[in-house]
């Protein structure tokens, strides 16, 4: 009468489980689906409303651009078929390619283009500069629009073909009319992929389908320019937060590409079967340290100079990146290997010169007041460099008050102009992709308009004037000369300290090919999967 004993019941259950588990192992990797792991969680979908890189990358999938930059940095037409400039260089006429259509089936018209350009230039720095030149826009016909300038401007094409945030993407007029400070409600573009809004789960995944009606250009792809051939029916962005899980998922074949694997995994990735490492952005990224020009002691150029003398780029690369071949010393404020990079940077060599640093400190009358250095605790990609900065500044004789906080607090505190001891700051460090700092007009640190300049609020009219000349210059040689002059002033007034350049290669399955080289944007067209 004794009921079945408990122990044997549990034993039977576990036998059943074992057979049930050993079912099919892998999710079969179907060649018509591409699974991509972005470097961050895709939250905001409006590429104008925020400059976040992940939103920019998402927008490249869904929207199309008038012009786009090729691998050599030249601006090539994309949606524009032909364009002409009037004799006095004040009127630009653009004619769109025929048959361009939005995902909701409506044709792309010049009215859509003008509305999109207006919304873009209300938020983008370079767009802002362009706006100062523009008198008005005309839309003579559905496929032609005209830009009338007050005076000749050398950066029209540079602006319309701009590679990084905010990119002048073209949206339907009804959406583009949303004010720049408000987020758009719908994602409808004319790009190579269609965004499946219903399958979008923030923090989980985003789904894009191939746009069958997309009319790709017939030139070969080169960076953002050329034909945008799509070889997949469905692309899934899979959000995986934990770097170790990203590594495991790629190894197990559950995902096809990881945009930014942790640097520590680089060597192991190279030896892992079925996986290879590719560098789609040779120009890579760069670390910088920004001074607060408003408050003592860094309002004194000598003390800023002293801090720059203490900086050793090698240590930043070694600790944050850790893989020697991925990093390089680069003295220039522009990424080495891009158009305007220039080696002559005065005394700043990127190698610590403690003697000079101490001398400058003495000259500047530094009395040892603590320097508030902010460090983000939750952003792994730049969490380690402040520790290096603290060590190097202390070696030079600075006293450092190390403030640790999460990224959101740092962004908020960075925007405060109060004195460092009352909730303000002296120093913070961050990183930029090459695309953002390859042109003086897009480099935030060169926004030296004082109180309404970039954080740090440097007031240096010489930089602003040179940037205006740069915008008017029409030949590459002239632009190069002006860029070097800007760098010279930047170094003299130490706007910020470049702390080394590094690449952040992606990791892909070995059966993937055709990943385009770009100034930092992962492009998912042109890719093939065997």
């Amino acid at each position, binding site marked *: 009468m004794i009921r079945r004993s408990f122990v044997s019941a549990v034993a039977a259950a576990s036998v059943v489980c074992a057979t049930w588990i050993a079912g099919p192992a892998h999710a079969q990797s179907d060649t018509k689906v591409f699974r991509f792991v972005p470097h961050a969680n895709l939250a905001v979908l409006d590429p104008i409303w925020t400059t976040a890189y992940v939103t920019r990358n998402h927008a490249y999938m869904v929207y199309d651009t008038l012009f786009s930059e090729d691998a050599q940095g030249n601006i090539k037409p994309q949606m524009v078929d032909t364009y002409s400039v009037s004799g006095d260089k004040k009127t630009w006429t653009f004619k769109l390619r025929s048959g361009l259509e939005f995902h909701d089936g409506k044709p792309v018209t010049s009215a859509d283009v003008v509305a999109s350009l207006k919304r873009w230039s209300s938020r983008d720095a370079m767009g802002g500069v362009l706006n100062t030149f523009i008198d008005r826009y005309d839309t003579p016909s559905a496929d032609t629009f005209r830009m009338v300038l007050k005076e000749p401007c050398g950066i029209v094409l540079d602006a319309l073909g701009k590679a990084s945030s905010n990119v002048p993407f073209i949206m339907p007029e009804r959406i583009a009319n949303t004010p720049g400070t408000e987020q758009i409600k719908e994602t409808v573009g004319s790009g190579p992929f269609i965004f499946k809004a219903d399958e979008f789960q923030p923090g989980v995944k985003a789904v894009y389908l191939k746009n069958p009606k997309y009319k790709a250009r017939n030139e070969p792809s080169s960076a953002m320019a050329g034909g945008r051939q799509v070889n997949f029916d469905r692309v899934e962005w899979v959000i995986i937060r*934990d*770097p*170790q899980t990203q*590594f*495991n998922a790629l190894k197990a074949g559950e995902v096809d590409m990881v945009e930014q694997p*942790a640097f*520590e*995994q680089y*060597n*192991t990735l190279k030896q892992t079967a079925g996986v290879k490492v590719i560098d789609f952005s040779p120009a890579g990224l760069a670390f910088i340290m920004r001074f607060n020009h408003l408050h003592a002691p860094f309002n004194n150029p000598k003390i800023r100079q002293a801090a720059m003398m203490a900086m050793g780029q*090698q*240590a930043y690369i*070694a*600790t944050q990146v*850790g893989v020697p071949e991925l990093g390089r010393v680069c003295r220039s404020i522009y990424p080495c290997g891009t158009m305007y990079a220039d080696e002559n940077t005065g005394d700043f060599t990127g190698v610590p010169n403690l003697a000079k640093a101490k001398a400058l400190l003495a000259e500047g009358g530094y009395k040892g007041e603590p320097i508030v250095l902010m*460090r983000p*605790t*939750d*952003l*792994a990609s730049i*969490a*380690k460099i402040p*520790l*290096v900065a603290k*060590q190097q500044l*202390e*070696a030079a004789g600075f006293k450092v008050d*190390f*403030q*640790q*906080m*999460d990224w*959101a*607090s740092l962004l908020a505190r960075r925007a405060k102009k109060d004195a460092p001891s009352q909730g303000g700051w002296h120093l913070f460090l961050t990183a930029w992709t090459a695309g953002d700092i390859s042109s003086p007009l897009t480099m935030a640190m060169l926004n030296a308009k004082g109180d309404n300049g970039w954080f740090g609020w440097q007031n240096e009219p010489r930089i602003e004037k040179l940037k205006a000349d740069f915008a008017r210059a029409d030949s590459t040689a002239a632009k190069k000369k002006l860029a070097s002059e800007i760098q010279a002033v930047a170094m003299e007034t130490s706007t910020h300290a470049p702390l080394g350049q590094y690449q952040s290669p992606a990791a892909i399955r070995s059966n993937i090919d055709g990943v385009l080289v770009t100034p930092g944007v992962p492009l998912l067209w042109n890719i093939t999967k065997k």
Partner: protein
Amino acid sequence: MTTFDKLWANGAFRFGAVVLGLVLLMALLAPVLGTVDPAQMDYNNINRSAGFAGNFTLTDGSSVAHHFWLGSDNFGRDLFSRVVYGARVSLVVAACTAAVALLIGVLVGMLAGYFRGADLLLMRFMDGLMAIPAILLAIALVAALGASITTVVIAIAIPEIPRVSRLVRSLVLTLREEPFVEAARALATPTPVILLRHILPNAMAPLLVQGTFVAASAVLTEAILSFLGLGLPANIPTWGNIMAEGRTQFSQYPGNVLYPALFLVPTVLAFNLLGDGLRDVLDPKFAKR
């Protein structure tokens, strides 16, 4: 046989006490155990394997011969030094969290247990406190006060306070009815004296037990906070943030996670078994068995 002999006879208590004693000893003797400054980064000694013998560059640039018993992390910091010094912070976090949680918990629990009026108000507030997810509280505190030992202790202690106060309240409710408490009232002993002299000493046993469990979970929660980037800053090593930082390269250099775990697991185990031992010996309900 004094209470301590009875406790020592209990296997669980003995294991817990011995292990905790060893860890405490290691923490106190940290400077002499062949360690270097745990926060010092030497970037030409990155990711050394365990047992590597080389030399370690100090802040002033000079280098000293050093044996990397447990290798080094991806910062080039000596893992053995970080683990040994980490013991200090982890034990401090555990002890302080338990103390804070018990102190405030006893205060609230006693008031709620003895005075009907206060009971409703306090317990509803405790419910409210328990309803706020611990992670949100921790993040808000660390964000507001900056990451330091005190913030982390408060962040871990606050979610424990409602549990402790609920335990104390139930103890007070039962002890209140005991004849020796009624006799004290008949002897005109003032209420606060009754609480401190008669009720608290008899609630000590279950409180100590709860204290050890709070300490154990404190060491673990600190590791979780570090995992989320909200624990103590990197230059103050704790087992939690060593493991959290080492996790990105778990497949490549598992040592960064496993070596601290070799210390963390026995310590948390010791806290828990200490608690079990205390409960089995001191708790009157069990003594009867």
